[in-house]
């Protein structure tokens, strides 16, 4: 059977909107498209197949701004045209596939790079940058964080219709006396810690059980934790732990690291626009690893300061044991838990040298007075 060398086609010349019925002839090197207006020749090598439904063959010029299109709707003749194009078409399709594979490979490489940079590179960079940043530069950052915590606490107080300020120790005699004891104890610990900057201590009027060290040497001891503690040396351990964070500049390191992580993930994954959840999750987990090491170092610092003052460096561990008995942090939450497993911390604290006959940091009377620092009177 003879293969036809010409057949019918529909021609869109790229200039007029009206389709034209044309005759398509298969010449040696080119498709000859003949309409009433004349003949157009398309080199086989320049022709590309375009997406079309069913058996329809749709052709255009590859890498060309021309919008001229040729359609062959007769399936038999279409197959014949295809055999003339095949080499070229296969080539184009293969290069498209190659290009696509390259994109996928590079994306995967990019993802791996982002994770490595986020997990290994950024902490190292933060570590390198830290000595270059003067302590004084931490102050405005600490002030911002301080203002945010203060605003949060004050909102909470307002909700409870309490018209009390964020700082404890300013509302009446008992508060004043309590704050005075607190400050005395704090300065004693600070002296033993030998920090390069002066710390600004606050007792925050909130029931949250926590204490935080902010960049620039601002330390918040939340009243909630004071209420939970059973001896002055437990509080001493908590404060000395926070002073450890100040000494090691953990707040600033955290800021550098967190900014880097969120920026990196945000940029790399286009998070600027959406999917913020993932940045936060990645940050949480990567930071988490970081804080574990820092918390352990601050614990060690705490025991050293307490040891120096002849107080009980292990009292801090008692607090953890009590918390663990009262409310075991569920293992479910460990992936996102902010502190290293408390049992590990207790063991590490207990492994440090003990003080044979510890002298408590405060007398019983002073301790009772301190506990009244947020009494509101």
């Amino acid at each position, binding site marked *: 059977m003879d293969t036809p060398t010409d057949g019918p086609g529909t021609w869109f010349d790229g200039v*007029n909107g009206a389709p034209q019925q044309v005759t398509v002839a298969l010449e040696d090197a080119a498709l000859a498209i003949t309409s009433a207006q004349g003949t157009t020749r398309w080199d086989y090598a320049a022709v590309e197949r375009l997406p079309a439904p069913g058996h*329809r063959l749709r052709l255009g010029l590859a890498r060309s701004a021309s919008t001229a299109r040729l359609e062959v709707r007769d399936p038999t003749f279409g197959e014949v045209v295809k055999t003339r194009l095949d080499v070229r078409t296969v080539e184009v399709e293969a290069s498209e596939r190659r290009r696509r594979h390259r994109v996928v490979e590079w994306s995967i490489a990019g993802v791996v790079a982002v994770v490595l940079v986020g997990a290994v590179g950024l902490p190292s960079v933060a570590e390198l940058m830290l000595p270059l940043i003067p302590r004084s530069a931490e102050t405005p*950052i600490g002030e*911002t964080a301080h203002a945010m915590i203060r605003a949060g606490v004050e909102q909470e107080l307002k909700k409870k219709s309490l018209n009390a300020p964020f700082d404890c120790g300013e509302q009446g005699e008992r508060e004043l006396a309590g704050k005075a004891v607190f400050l005395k104890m704090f300065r004693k610990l600070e002296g033993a810690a030998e920090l390069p900057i002066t710390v600004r201590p606050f007792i925050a009027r909130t029931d949250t059980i926590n204490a935080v060290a902010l960049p620039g040497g601002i330390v918040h001891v939340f009243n909630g934790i004071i209420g939970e503690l059973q001896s002055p040396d437990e509080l001493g351990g908590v404060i000395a732990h926070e002073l450890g964070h100040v000494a090691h500049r953990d707040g600033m390191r955290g800021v550098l690291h967190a900014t880097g992580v969120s*920026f990196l993930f945000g940029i790399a994954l*286009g998070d600027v626009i959406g*999917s913020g*959840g993932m940045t936060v999750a990645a940050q949480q987990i990567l930071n988490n690893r970081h804080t574990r090491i820092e918390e352990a170092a601050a614990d060690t610092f705490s025991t050293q300061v307490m040891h120096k003052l002849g107080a009980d460096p292990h009292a801090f561990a008692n607090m953890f044991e009590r918390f663990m008995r009262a409310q075991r942090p569920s293992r*479910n939450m460990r992936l996102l838990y902010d502190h290293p497993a408390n049992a590990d911390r207790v063991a590490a604290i207990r492994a440090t040298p003990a003080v044979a006959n510890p002298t408590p940091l405060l007398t019983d009377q002073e301790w009772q007075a301190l506990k009244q620092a947020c009494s509101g009177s």
Partner: protein
Amino acid sequence: MSVTGSPAAVPAEARGQFLGSKREYWHILSRDALLLIATLGLYRFWVSTEVRQYLWSHTELGGEQLEYTGDALELLVGFLVLLAVLGPLVAVFAVLSLLTGNYAVATLASYAPVILVVPLSVLALYQARRYRVNHTIFRGLRFHQTGSAWIYALRMSLWLIVNFFTFGLSYPWARASLERYKMRHTFYGDVQGSFVGSGWPLFRRGFIPWLILLGPVVVMFFMLGANAEGATEAQVQELAGAFLDRSGIWLLVAGAVIYPIFHATVLRWRIAGMRFGTLGFSSGFSTWRVCKAYYKFFALLVLIGIVATIAAVAVQRKIVPAWPLGTSVVIEFIGVMLLVIAYFVVATMGTFAYQGTVRFDVWRLIVESSTLRGLDQIDRAKVHAGHAARHAGRIGAALNLGGF
């Protein structure tokens, strides 16, 4: 009658036809899903390009198919340019929020990226349409969009304010105004588009759905106002909280039922108002079939939510406790990576659920039910010499916004 050479007699009316099948469409989506996850979403530009190529090329109007000539790599480049501009901006805001030491400034700066994204999205909406329009070919002629994204964004913002203060009642006129702007700046070859729809018909059809959806919220809002008179600050806060909770739940539930109806109404109105010269369209698809596509999508979302929750709980219970945390940095990285991948799996499933239901079904519905009148207009259309800008709108298009 001549067969070759001169065009055949033009029928006054022609119908649309969709030649694709859902099986082929899902085939494209499922093939792309793995690549999308492996590249943490960067492959989305190829997915949207392939999806458009498929939908366009399987759509026939008056016997001729559409063609999409967009290039995924161009979108990727647009996206990178966007990042290069936004990245430093976001960094500046981040530094500002840290360094000021002022609570108000810090709060404002931390919200700045979000505030930035809103006007940007509006701009991108017009630019993304420009990209789609400029890369659509029909009968060998390109469509083309002119006009300024800034002016469009400004109009849209002003109308948003008006809509807000009229509880959405001005929406039909807002929409008509925006459609007029878009269509006036859209060309097929040298034929200028226009929009002849007016606000009233849409208002009449949309009023009942509006009443059902927003009526209760408005009533609740005025009740809040009445109750709040003479109440203490704490009481007002409590009342406002209750109002937000209740209206939020109502909007979610009633919105899920009513939004598809609303969408179908607006679509029919928009299609009926579109003109290219004397070429006009109408589309008589049934509202119920649009609703069905949406309800399928919502059901899939619920299903994905349930599966993801069960999987998350199972991982929390069985795998996380056994995961040796805090012992090795490498193991924690693997944990982070797995979490990120899980996030993308869920996000991809959600997106594809939409693509496979609402996107595909509504597209097919519109095409199959549409009628074109005055086809001789496209026969007389000529190429427009000035319309050749190939890369226009790619940055906006990279944000992947907008419908058709």
